[in-house]
């Protein structure tokens, strides 16, 4: 891990009007992320995590403050300049994968390459490396509707990395995956930060990531602070048995006056289909 800063936020705030009042989604946040660093943003729902990620990703203009990406302040940039910056410097990974349905695996990964110098032709070699690294070589020509959730997220990771960005911003990348697939994706992102010297900033509720992250930033009521590692309330997912932080878990349900939380939507659905089966197993 090198020590040079790749992403800086200086006193970043975002306020939204709500009727006659004002909602402070992000309030005076400053942070500094270095190359090769894997940083998590965690916090309760509605704490402003996605708003912060959007501003850091040059998708949303802050009300005040500044974002500096690879030494360049983006506050005075025009829309087209911001778009070009996103294409070259930032890779995005989303919870819902967001693949383009009509394009196959290879085409999806190459999609942003047309915005980079040399275009798709120049990105061919990197495509082969990524397909191999992501274990997608055999699925190179498959359409997204034939892929599993894990494969889809690996394609999304490939797309995020094709232009060799300085930063990867990941929004709940394991949110739609079961525990096994989620683990795979986390390790891939960890390797990306370590091997490619690329900063990975991840919004997540997945407590497993904490164990491999360099830093965890806790966002609450729009303000950010370092979170102490003992602030957990570990419980087990009743379906897969995975360890989950009850405080930060977002997927859950009430059953017989008791709240159960899950690592993924898939586990929740399994639980809802046969709750007693899983509760008996737990006992």
């Amino acid at each position: 891990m090198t020590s040079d800063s790749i992403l800086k936020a200086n006193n970043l705030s975002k306020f939204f009007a709500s009727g006659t009042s004002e909602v402070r989604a992000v309030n005076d946040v400053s942070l500094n992320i270095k190359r090769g660093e894997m940083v998590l943003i965690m916090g309760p729902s509605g704490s402003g995590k996605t708003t912060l990620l959007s501003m850091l990703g040059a998708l949303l203009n802050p009300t005040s403050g500044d974002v500096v990406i690879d030494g360049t302040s983006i506050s005075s940039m025009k829309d087209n300049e911001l778009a070009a910056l996103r294409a070259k410097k930032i890779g995005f990974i989303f919870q819902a994968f967001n693949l383009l349905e009509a394009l196959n695996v290879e085409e999806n990964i190459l999609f942003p390459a047309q915005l980079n110098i040399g275009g798709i032709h120049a990105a061919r070699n990197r495509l082969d490396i990524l397909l191999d690294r992501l274990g997608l070589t055999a699925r190179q020509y498959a359409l997204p509707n034939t892929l599993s959730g894990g494969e889809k997220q690996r394609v999304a990771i490939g797309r995020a990395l094709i232009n060799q960005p300085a930063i990867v911003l990941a929004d709940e990348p394991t949110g739609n995956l079961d525990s096994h697939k989620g683990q795979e994706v986390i390790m891939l992102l960890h390797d990306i930060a370590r091997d490619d010297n690329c900063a990975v900033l991840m919004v997540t509720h997945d407590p497993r990531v904490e164990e491999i992250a360099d830093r965890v930033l806790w966002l609450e009521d729009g303000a950010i602070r370092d979170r102490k590692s003992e602030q957990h309330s570990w419980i087990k997912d009743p379906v897969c048995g995975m360890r989950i932080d009850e405080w930060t878990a977002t997927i859950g349900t009430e059953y017989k006056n008791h709240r159960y939380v899950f690592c993924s939507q898939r586990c929740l659905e399994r639980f809802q289909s046969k709750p007693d089966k899983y509760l008996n197993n737990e006992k």
Partner: protein
Amino acid sequence: MIYWSIKTLLSEPTRLFISALAVSMSFLLVVFFSAVFEGESEQMVTYLRKMDADIWVMQKGVSNMHMASSMVWDWKVDKIASIPGVKAVSAILYLNGPLKIGGKDWFSYLMGISPKYKNTGPWDMAKGKALPEQGEVVIPEVVSQLTGVQIGDEITMVDRKLRVVGLTHGTFAMASSVVFVSHEDLGNLLHGRDQVSYIMVYANPGVSTQTLIQRIKDDVEKVNVLSSEDFIQSDWQLATQMGTEIIRMMTTIGTLLATLIVAFTSYSLVARKKQELAIAKALGFSNGQIYSAALCQSVVITGTGLLFTLLLSYTLLTWLPAMIPQLNLAVGLHQFIPIVVITLPVAVIASFIAARTVVKVDPMTVFSG
């Protein structure tokens, strides 16, 4: 983005096919009306073409057959025949008017023909005899098919009954069919048994038409003399003038329809792919690049529609007259020129609506899991 737009279109071939077909239907409408109009106009000068005269002579001040009336003393036919350079002459009496056939009025070119004059038609008989005598009439076979009137049945010409003795090919037009009666019957009706309406002049080989026209003008008073080419052109122009506005209107309607269809298709494609456009925006594509993808889709839909129009025109429009005998269609490549010319503007205009949606797409929606 262009590649994405084409792949997206091709990933839903049924939708593309239906959209292109709808576009082609509106284009086809334009071609169809143009073909009908041109076919009808052509039919209006068919008689003039079939007579194959070099020169037409008519009453002074008259320069048309369509919507016109001409009366010339019949002795002028002999006088013209005696002019040096004239190989042969022929003449007809003519009236533009309705006939009652099978209880319905049919606006017709009534040709009063006489065995005295050769080469006055009909030129293609379907059934019966070609030369009507007094009290007889030769009508188009299509009129017979549409009305059920057969040979031996009676029709009415103004105040007198005529018996159908022959059926002809190639003489029907929706606006005015060519009907042959005897010179005597039409002469009685017009109180002009010693007169003719139009004189057809055939020149000797080697004699120029212009020279002969000048000789006729010099020798025969109170007549207008036109080359066959000028006479046909004059009638053709009159016919087309009457329909130009209608054709322009139909072209405008067809174009508007095509634009609306392409615009709706482009808009619905963009609206359905909003999330993918948001992804593209988030990944760094500009509004201009995304708009170019929407424009590309419009161009592909309109272009495919144009291709369908060409294919359908040559199959449908050649097959239709066999099914609907009263249709006179003239299909030519020139009728597709306006369609080809408007294709790109239609695609561009249609994509404007999609462009508004593109600009409004919020890349932040990529975060809605």
